[in-house]
């Protein structure tokens, strides 16, 4: 089984090397999609490629996380991945969760595994406002998008899927709304899916980078999903 990780990265020169080193312990290869970074993200990622297991692709201009994830997923499929893992580049995901994330896909019991911050494992440093915003996002997903109520985390960036599932999952959104699109596609396409508890670590650094105004992000996500509904 060939397991390829896909990491979209934008201005992550300080964090990407550590994420790659930790994740490579559990993945065969990693595709980093540098989404038009203005810093040395590409160089930092290539610097960790000691065994030829890291491939860095670069978007000429910044197209946002969803677009970078789509590029990386296509690259992974083109290279013959059996299992694809999506990870964030900012170090929020704990690489130690990867074996649990991969196991149900490896043993063939499910097609997609989603990491969730709301299944008993306390996220480290998650602001209360964000917790409530995510809860609201979950209800938005349920009521507006028809996503299953069983999904507990509406914006998780940690997921593993078979190559066949990755081909079936269609998402067009370039921005953060891609997470909701993926959830909708997964839960309404007949794919077998499950959530596992995921430990997420918020540091001041990652919170600063993500920006403080998450409410405007939520409004943007809802707006993009609405406009996306009318776009071919």
């Amino acid at each position, binding site marked *: 089984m060939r397991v390829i990780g896909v990491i979209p990265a934008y201005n992550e020169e300080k964090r990407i090397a550590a994420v790659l080193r930790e994740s490579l312990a559990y993945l065969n290869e990693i595709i980093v999609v*540098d989404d038009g970074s203005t810093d040395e993200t*590409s160089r930092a990622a290539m610097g960790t490629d000691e065994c030829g297991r890291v491939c860095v692709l670069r978007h*000429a201009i910044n197209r946002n996380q969803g677009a970078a994830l*789509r590029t990386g997923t296509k*690259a992974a499929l*083109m*290279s013959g991945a059996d299992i694809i893992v999506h990870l964030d580049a900012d170090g929020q995901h704990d690489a130690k969760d990867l074996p649990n994330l991969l196991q149900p896909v490896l043993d063939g019991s499910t097609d997609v595994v989603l990491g969730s911050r709301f299944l008993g494992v306390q996220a480290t440093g998650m602001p209360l406002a964000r917790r409530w915003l995510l809860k609201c996002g979950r209800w938005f997903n349920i009521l507006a998008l028809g996503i299953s109520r069983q999904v507990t985390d509406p914006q998780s960036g940690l997921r593993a899927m078979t190559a066949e599932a990755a081909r079936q999952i269609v998402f067009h959104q370039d921005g953060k709304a891609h997470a909701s699109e993926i959830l909708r596609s997964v839960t309404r396409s007949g794919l077998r899916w499950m959530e596992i508890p995921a430990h997420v670590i918020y540091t001041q650094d990652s919170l600063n980078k993500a920006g403080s105004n998450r409410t405007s992000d939520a409004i943007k996500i809802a707006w993009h999903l609405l406009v996306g509904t009318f776009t071919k």
Partner: protein
Amino acid sequence: MLIQILLVLGFVLALWVTLKRFRQRVISLSEFLAWSVLWLGGAIVSILPKLTEYLAAIFGVGRGVDLILYAAVAIQFFLIFKLFINLEKTERQLTKIVEQNALAVLSFPRSSSDDVGNPESDGSSGLRRTTPKDDKNGDESSHSQG
């Protein structure tokens, strides 16, 4: 009245530009018809303002000018929304080009299967970026660093 003449001239000009754009195949037939109806309606209302009073009575609006304002606001909302949708389409096309550009520098020699979670196993991947010399699809340097 002068205002009527100016308005009619404005609408005729708009109609002429619309026809020109249709002939240049910039807009589709349905778009041409929709815009033409709008400009012609404006011209007719400018020539026969009493007509708006009649229409306002039909729609239950107090004054003719109110009806025009309501209709204008509704049409503007629709056009703004359409602009957003067109912008989204353009954004997606742009993303597609960026994506193709990024993927073009890859070559994919397939490798034998590796053991998951065993980085000491043959780490040689099937996934390789082409070197600058090999890259015939684009300028490698433009993908390496920002």
